[in-house]
């Protein structure tokens, strides 16, 4: 089963994303900030897609993307930013850091799953 790594500092958002993704046939690993995301990867989690928020404590989304791109196993893993930010400047910053795509909250489950399925079909 493909693994999706979900990073968000909101417990409700983590639960919500996990519910939607598990229902669509994905295995879900979670972290409450970018630092926890890097820890999961260091522990051996090999995500097929990473979904990350931008505004998180300790290590934010941009910082996480930069660090994840330095790690061999996630150098080319698709990273989708899911955030309340819709501004061009933030989007450019995320893209420059290595983000593959962008979804603005509130997104609908179908929008989210369409993007994830395009990058990694559930088995």
């Amino acid at each position, binding site marked *: 089963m493909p693994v999706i790594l979900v990073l968000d500092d909101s417990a*409700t958002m983590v639960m*919500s994303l996990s*519910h939607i993704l598990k229902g669509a046939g994905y295995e879900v690993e979670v972290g409450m900030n970018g630092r926890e995301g890097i820890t999961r990867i260091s522990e051996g989690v090999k995500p097929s897609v990473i979904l990350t928020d931008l505004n998180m404590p300790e290590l934010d989304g941009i910082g996480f993307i930069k660090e994840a791109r330095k790690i061999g196993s996630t150098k080319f893993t698709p990273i989708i930013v899911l955030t*309340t*930010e819709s*501004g061009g400047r933030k989007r450019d910053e995320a893209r420059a850091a290595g983000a593959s795509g962008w979804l603005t*909250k509130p*997104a609908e489950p*179908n929008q*989210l799953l369409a993007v994830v399925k395009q990058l990694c079909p559930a088995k």
Partner: protein
Amino acid sequence: MSVTKEANEHLVCAILAEQVAALRDRMDASAAFDLLWRTTALLSWLSGLLAENQRHGGQSNPVFERERAEAIVQVAAIRTELDELAFVQAQRQDFARQIADCIVTALERMAVAEMPRGTSFSSGDLAALYVSEDQRKLHDSVLRRLTRG
């Protein structure tokens, strides 16, 4: 500004920060979302049971067959709608919590009495706390309105 007035403003900011923090903490709706997700999981299970029953039932009661088929369609439809509702509401609630958090942080900083001489909490400092373009647009529109005349 007199020391007394300044101290009073810091006190008001500190109290407002606590009030908004309490409001933010009351925004937690995890129990409601959990119930919604459990409901959709139950509906999914029921839908599976009905479909399985349809495959293996072999009953030839046409009324029952029709109602079972209709129930499968309706259970799937309501499950999808509940999933969508829970997901979108969770995001909106999180957004509201983040906006409240931003106000708490601003008020807490304004409540600090001993800021270095010549410094204060500016509108630029406030803008740096924003988490969305909508907040920045609102900020700009207020600045334009207040500086027009």
